[in-house]
C-alpha cells in the first residue's frame, strides 16, 4: 500500500473484515457495486498532507512557491502574423489542423456604418486556404471594403484564479499550480471533457491522440527553466508579455503598472490572470 500517510482517511479498522469467511456471498458483485460505499468515504474528505519536499518543487532549479505568473496581451500591437499560433503548435505538439488551438488570434472588423464587428480567426476556411504549413495567415478579404475600425486580439487560456475547468474536473486531473498555471495531468485524465464544456473562453480542446483534455500550459516546461512561453518568445512586436508578478521589475509587473487592464468575460467570476489592453466591448 503506497503512501498511506497521505490519505489518513482511508483506513478502516481492518479487523471488521475478519468476521466474514463465506466465499459465496457475491450477491453484490458487479461494476456498479464498487461505487457505493465510497459515498460515505467522500464525506470524510481528503486530508492534505503537507510534508514539504526537501528541495524545491517541481524541479531541482525551480521552486513554484517563489513565483506568481501573469500574462499580458497588448492588442494595439498585434499585427496578426500568427507566428505565436504556429510556434505554439510546434512547441507543444498540438494537432496541426483548424480545430485544436492552445492560442489563437481573432480579427475584429467594423465596416463603415455597421453596429457589430465581423469576426474571424485563423481557423476560418478562407484563411486556411491562403495559409501554408507553418505559415498560417489571415486573408485580405476586406481590402475592397470601407473599414471603420479593425484590430487583432490574441486569445489563449486565461489561467483563471477561479478556473471553471478545475472546479468541474471529476478526478483532479486538472489543477492550478502554486505559481498560477492551470495544468492537465495527461496520465490521470479520463477524457470526459466536462472541463472543455465548462471553460467560458473555449480555451480547452480534446486531444484525440492522447484521448484526454488539453490546453495551454504557459509552456510550463519553458517557464520552469527560466524561459518565456513560446508565444511570447516568438512574438515579433511584443504584443505578448509574460512574467512573475512577484517581481516588481518583471515585464508583466511593468505592464500592469503602466496600463489600465481588462480581462475577458469578467461576469463569469473566473478572474483571469491574462490581462488585456486595447480590446473592444465586442471582444469576449
Amino acid at each position, binding site marked *: 500500500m503506497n503512501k498511506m500517510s497521505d490519505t489518513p482517511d482511508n483506513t478502516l479498522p481492518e479487523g471488521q473484515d475478519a468476521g466474514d469467511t*463465506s466465499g459465496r456471498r457475491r450477491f453484490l458483485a458487479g461494476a456498479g457495486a464498487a461505487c457505493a460505499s*465510497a459515498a460515505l468515504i467522500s464525506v470524510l474528505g481528503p486530508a492534505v498532507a503537507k510534508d514539504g519536499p526537501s528541495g524545491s518543487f517541481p524541479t531541482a532549479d525551480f521552486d513554484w512557491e517563489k513565483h506568481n505568473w501573469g500574462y499580458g496581451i497588448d492588442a494595439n500591437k498585434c499585427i496578426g502574423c500568427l507566428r505565436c499560433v504556429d510556434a505554439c503548435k510546434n512547441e507543444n505538439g498540438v494537432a496541426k489542423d483548424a480545430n485544436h488551438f492552445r492560442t489563437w488570434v481573432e480579427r475584429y472588423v467594423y465596416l463603415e456604418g455597421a453596429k457589430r464587428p465581423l469576426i474571424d480567426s485563423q481557423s476560418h476556411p478562407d484563411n486556411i486556404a491562403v495559409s501554408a504549413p507553418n505559415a498560417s495567415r489571415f486573408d485580405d478579404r476586406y481590402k475592397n471594403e470601407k473599414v471603420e475600425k479593425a484590430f487583432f486580439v490574441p486569445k489563449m487560456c486565461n489561467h483563471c484564479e477561479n478556473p471553471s475547468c478545475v472546479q468541474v474536473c471529476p478526478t483532479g486531473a486538472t489543477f492550478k499550480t502554486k505559481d498560477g498555471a492551470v495544468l492537465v495531468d495527461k496520465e*490521470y485524465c*479520463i477524457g470526459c471533457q*466536462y472541463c472543455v464544456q465548462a471553460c*467560458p473562453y*473555449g480555451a480547452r480542446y*480534446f486531444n*484525440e491522440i492522447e484521448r484526454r483534455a488539453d490546453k495551454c500550459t504557459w509552456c510550463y516546461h519553458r517557464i520552469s527553466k527560466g524561459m518565456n512561453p513560446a508565444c511570447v518568445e516568438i512574438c515579433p512586436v511584443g504584443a505578448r508579455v509574460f512574467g512573475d508578478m512577484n517581481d516588481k521589475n518583471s515585464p508583466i509587473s511593468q505592464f500592469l503598472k503602466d496600463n489600465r487592464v481588462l480581462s475577458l468575460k469578467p461576469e463569469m467570476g473566473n478572474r483571469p490572470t491574462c490581462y488585456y489592453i486595447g480590446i473592444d466591448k465586442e471582444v469576449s
Partner: protein
Amino acid sequence: MEAVHAAAEAIYHVTPYTGYVYPNETVVPWSILIVIYPYLTGLVAGAFTVSSLFHVFGIERFRPVARFALIAALCFMVVVPVTLLSHLGHPERAFNAMITPHTTSAMAIFGYVAGFYVILLMLEIWFMFREDIVYNAQNDRSWKRPIYRLMTLGSYEINDKTRHYDHKWLLTLAIIGIPASHGLHGYVGFVFGSLKSRDWWSSDLMPAIFLFSAIVSGVSVLIILYMIVSLVRRVKIDEDCIKGMVLALWGFLMFTVLLEGVEFFALMYRAREGIDIIREYKSGPLFWRFAIMQIGIGAVLPVIIMSLMVYFKTSGRKLMVGAFICAALVLTSVIFMRYNVVIGGQEISKTMKGLLSYEVPFFGQEGWMAAIILLSTPLVFMYVLTRFFNPWIESAKSHAEALAHAK
C-alpha cells in the same frame, strides 16, 4: 507525426458553423451518447417513482406494475454507466473519479450517487423477491437453481419474523429510494445547469425540468412495456392500473410543460447578451426540434388527448390506444428534450456570436447506431432478469400451486 494527426482528423467530426465560434468549439465534445445518458437516467427515476407510489404511498392501482417497475429501473440503470464509459477518452481510468473524487465536481459525486442507487435498487429487488428466491432455490429444477441458492445467502428461513424484517427493510429502502432516485436525476440536471459557460444550460430550473421530464418518461415507458408484455403474455391489461398511470402522466406532464415553458420564456424575455443568436437559433434549426417535436406534438398534444380522455371518462380499448399513443409521444418528446439540451447547448457558441450545426453520424462510437444499441440493451436485461424474478405474479409459490392445480 503528420500521419498521426491525419489519423486523428479522421476520428473527429468537424462541425460547420455560422457567425463566429471559438476555433476549439468546432469539435463538439458531447454527442449522442450524452443525450441518451440523461434519457436512461430519467427512465430509471420515472419507473422508480411509479414503484414508490405503490410501495410507499400505497396507491393500490399501481400494484400490477410495481414489481416490474423496479426491475425496469435496475435494467435502465446498469446501462447508464455504459453510456458514460463509452464516451470517455480513457474508460479504463474511470475509477480515478471514485478513487480521488473531486468534491467540487458534479460529475465525481454523480459516480457515488449512481453507485449508491444501484445498490439500493438491487437490495430492494432482493427483499421484494426473497420469498420467490427461497422457493425457487428449493424447487427449481433447472440450471438456475445454483444461482437462486447463491442469492438466498444460505438462509431458507421464511416465517412471520422474516416477513416482518423484510417488509421493514423494503419500506426503508423505498423511502430512501425516493430522494435517491429523484436526487440522482435532479443531479443530472445540475451537471448541465451548473455550467456558467453556456447560457442555454445555465439555469436554476434545469434540475427540476430534468426531474419532471424524467418522471413522465418513466411512467410512459412503463405504460408501453406493460401493454406490450401483457399482449405477449396474453393476459388482460389491468384497466385501473393504466388509468392510474395516465392520470399520473397527465399531471406530471402539465407540470413539465409549464417548467420548460417558464425556463424558455424567461431566457428569451431576460434577453441578456447574446439574445440575438438565441433568437436566430430558436427560429432556425430549433424550431422543429423544440417548438414542434418537444413541446407541440410531444407534450401539448398528449396533454390535450389525456385531458379529453379524463373529461370523457374514456375506458376500455379507447383508453388503451389513447394511453399508448400518449406514452409514445411523451417518450419522443423527452428524447428531443435531452437532445435539445445537450446538443442544443453546444450548438450555441460560447462566443454568443455564432451557431454550430451538429449532425449525429450514423456509424461510429458517437453515432445513432451505438445509441440505438445502448437504448435497447436494457430490454435484453429486462428479458433476462424477468426469467429469474417474475414480476407479473404475486409469488412463485402460489403461481406454481395454481399451475399444479390447473393440471
